[in-house]
């Protein structure tokens, strides 16, 4: 008898090794973003397997919910907490990695030989009859979800609302001190002017000189000096502002040239 190779089998033997490789990427890739991408790869492959298992509805739910929503949420959070947060290689517990691998191997053996041994080997009935009962996979699933499992379905709505509210509560953080109002800010400015003589008006604009007009260029005051207050503190700390002595030197040179020319004119 010639063994019949079905499309399902071909799909499985192509997709399964790829899935295992992607899952191993989760274990061995140091960077969290790579791990997230290999996880998304596993999930897309799982959708392919669902399609070959006659679960068309779940195929699309897998792609939309898992790959589209959940993994993108993971990626967003990765961006939020900083992609290059280093993954420490220091073992807090000695020999934990080895123990984890041994425990994993033991669990695989337990599942395969213990549970799998008693479940495997049955014939495959197929879903044609169950799908045909209501005219298709989606229709039959709908009949089950809104029929026998309708109460569970209603409960999931409560779960989703609770999760959304919980995420909002966790994401919110209480203010330690009240937000200063415009009046507070104005009073603070005037107090500083009275005590330390700090100019209460707006700060000078940055970079209003002939050669540059970027925000990293300090403003040139009428007397030829540059104003440090005209550039952002953050830029100054990063050290990306243009060199102020160099800027004022060009002014000084220009002044000198003019003075020199005048002096020559006076002499002649």
């Amino acid at each position, binding site marked *: 008898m010639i063994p019949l190779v*079905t499309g399902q089998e071909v799909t*499985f033997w192509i997709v*399964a090794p790829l*899935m*295992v490789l992607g*899952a191993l990427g*989760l*274990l061995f890739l140091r960077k*969290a973003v790579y*791990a*997230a991408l290999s*996880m998304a790869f596993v*999930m897309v492959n*799982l959708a392919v*397997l669902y399609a070959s*298992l*006659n*679960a068309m*509805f*779940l195929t699309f*739910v*897998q792609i939309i*919910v*898992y790959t589209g929503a*959940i993994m993108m*949420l*993971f990626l967003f*959070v990765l961006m939020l*907490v900083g992609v290059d947060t280093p*993954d*420490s290689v*220091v073992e*807090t517990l000695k020999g*934990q990695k080895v123990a984890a691998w041994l425990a994993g191997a033991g*669990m*695989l053996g337990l*599942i*395969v030989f213990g549970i*799998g041994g008693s479940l*495997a080997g*049955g*014939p*495959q*009935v197929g879903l044609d009859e*169950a*799908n045909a009962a209501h005219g298709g*996979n989606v229709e039959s*699933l709908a009949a*089950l*979800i809104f029929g026998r*499992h309708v109460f569970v379905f209603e409960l*999931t709505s409560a*779960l*989703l609302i609770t*999760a*959304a509210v919980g*995420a909002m509560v*966790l*994401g919110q*953080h209480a203010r330690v001190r009240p937000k200063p109002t415009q009046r507070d800010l104005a009073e603070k400015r005037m107090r500083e002017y009275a005590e330390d003589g700090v100019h209460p008006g707006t700060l000078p604009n940055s970079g209003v000189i002939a050669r540059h007009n970027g925000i990293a260029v300090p403003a040139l005051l009428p007397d030829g000096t540059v104003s440090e207050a005209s550039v952002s503190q953050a830029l100054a700390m990063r050290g990306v502002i243009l060199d102020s002595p160099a800027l004022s030197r060009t002014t000084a040179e220009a002044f000198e040239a003019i003075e020199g020319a005048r002096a020559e004119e006076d002499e002649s």
Partner: protein
Amino acid sequence: MSPDNYLYLAAILFTIGTIGVMIRRNALVAFMSVELMLNAANLAMVAFALARGGLDGQVATFFVMVVAAAEVVVGLSIIITIYRTRRSTSVDAANLLKL
């Protein structure tokens, strides 16, 4: 094709997820490993649905996906809250309750 191969694949993926939870120090990657375990269980259920000729496995998978979505939302916001206070997503950093 008997459903055995799918079950073995699900067992392998589930084990990889378990090992990932145990050895990865980054909370996000450990959390992704939990997702991998959920996916492995889903695969087993869909394979059983095909093997036994009933759609209940697929309905259960659908509910697992809903629960996973809710769980990810809350779990990720917990991770962000921890990150805000400890400035780290390493599971070793959250050790305030340690003696």
